């Protein structure tokens, strides 16, 4: 048997990568898999392990339940914010793909909001948009408005403040993804198009845009999934005036002391993420990336 001539250490070395990955998998099972199962238990089973819809009922009909509003606002915010973010980020990425002096410093500035927490972002715009905030002061001193615009404690204005803050905070994520994708496109691809007679617009339309599509889709997926978890900005700017799913989860857990309901909210967010992620992957797929035509 030729197998017997191979030393044991060599035979075992085949399993080295698995040994290296094992701690990660064990950790993930314990800290994500187990809590996920536990979360379902909390949401749908009582202390004695019997199936119950009590938490579902509380979520839907409990006193002060804002579930449908939370669902509506979470989706509405995503629907308003994401298209604006993607457009701005796309333009910004094209801009930063050009050569200009001070590019690095500008780049680091543009990504600054990525390094702060959503709570901090909310507070920053609370400073900006307050009654005595910079926004109102500058407009009044320029004579554009005579009375300060009140953003807080008025539902619709709070919504606008959240949209502004989220665009300010999270456009950078989309920007980074598209920018990275843009930089991966070989310069010779544009130049070839230029040599063969394409105008600036044609180069964008036929070369840059289709090559960038995968990055654009990645940005869209990531941004959408993060949008369902929106919490810190809303909580600091509007509290429960504008209810969102993650905010209601937090409220159920810390104020109502109902972990079952909180878990249910969290599971809804997870379910929504998985469903939308799957949809995106199904409908977007760059044709040229599929092998074996």
């Amino acid at each position, binding site marked *: 048997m030729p197998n017997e001539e191979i030393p044991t250490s060599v035979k075992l070395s085949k399993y080295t*990568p*698995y040994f*290296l*990955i094992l*701690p*990660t998998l064990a*950790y*993930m099972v314990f*800290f994500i898999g*187990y*809590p*996920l199962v*536990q*979360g379902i*238990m*909390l949401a749908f089973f009582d202390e004695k392990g019997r199936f119950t819809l009590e938490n579902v009922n509380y979520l839907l009909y409990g006193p002060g339940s804002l579930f449908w509003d939370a669902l509506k606002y979470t989706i509405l915010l995503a629907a308003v914010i994401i298209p604006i973010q993607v457009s701005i980020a796309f333009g910004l990425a094209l*801009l930063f793909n*050009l050569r200009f002096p001070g590019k690095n410093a*500008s*780049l680091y500035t543009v*990504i*600054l*909001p990525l*390094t*702060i*927490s*959503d*709570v*901090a972002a909310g*507070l*920053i715009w609370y*400073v*900006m948009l307050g009654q*005595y*905030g*910079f926004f*109102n*002061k*500058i407009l009044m*001193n320029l004579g554009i408005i005579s009375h300060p615009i009140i953003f807080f404690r008025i539902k619709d204005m709070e919504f606008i403040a959240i949209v502004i803050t989220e665009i*300010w905070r999270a456009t950078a*994520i989309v920007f*980074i*993804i598209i*920018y990275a*994708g843009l930089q991966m496109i070989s310069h010779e691809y544009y130049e070839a198009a230029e040599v063969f007679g394409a105008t600036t617009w044609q180069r964008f339309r036929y070369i840059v845009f289709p090559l960038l599509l995968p*990055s654009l889709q990645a940005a869209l997926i*990531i941004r959408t999934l993060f949008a369902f978890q929106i*919490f*810190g900005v809303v909580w*600091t700017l509007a509290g429960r005036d504008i209810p969102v799913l*993650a905010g209601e*989860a*937090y409220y159920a*857990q810390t104020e109502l002391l109902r*972990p079952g309901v*909180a878990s249910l909210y*969290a599971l809804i*967010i997870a379910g929504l993420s998985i469903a939308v*992620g799957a949809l995106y992957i199904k409908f977007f797929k760059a044709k040229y990336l599929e092998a074996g035509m």
Partner: protein
Amino acid sequence: MSREVLVKKSDIVKYYLRKIIIAGLVAIAVTWVALPFVMTIIYALSDPDQYYDPHIVIPTRYTLEHIHKLIVLGAWNATINSVIVAVLTILFSFAIGLPAGYAFARYAFKGKDSLKLFIVALRMFPMMVIAVPLLVLYFKLGLADTLLGIALAHTAMALPFVILITSGIIAGVPVEYEEAGLVFGLNRIGAFFRITLPLALPGLAAAAIFTFIMSWNEVFIAAVLSFQNRTLPAFILNLIGGATDFIKFAGAFIMVIPALVFVFVAGKYLVRMWGITLK
């Protein structure tokens, strides 16, 4: 001859027009992002009388009083807690994630692609889902309201990112360097520690900063898992319900300063890292 000059002139006009438009757009983008930071820092330090005067846009008198008040309320402790949690998160996530990152960068093995896809998918999983059930578990284990407990949860959140980043960094160190080490008498572990690790160190340091920022900024899990030993964002989140405007400003100020430092220390690396992890 005249034709040549004509072409050149219109070229020059176009050239400068283009430059001005680009500079203008960049200036708008930079101002839009930077101004709120600047104004937050200014107003957090401003004298209340001047702030409440609608005619004064940029105050002239400054005070540390608001920051001081926030610190008295417990912000200093919370900051220390945040640092401890972030450092623990770095330690745990690197201890567990670095070997996996190495495996993905250096080995070909069955199931590699699906495992990698799993990690990639996990990075987008809404980690807030684990917070509430984890608290139930933590009560049993005595980890509720401990910094260790928060750090362990943050490790779960950071792990996919750490694996993707470290495998990217290690893949960037040519395998030949390591093989040369093997040929000249090192074993695989020795080759990693003596050759690959020193070469990957700047990248790994940046990855550590990246992990720090992730943990430093996470609020939902931290807020759910702690009641007394709060991290800074959880502390502020809990505080702002009934706080005065200036306490809120000071809160923003205190959370923003470290971020500014990080970007100017490791900005270049951070851009690349987001590029890797978000692809």
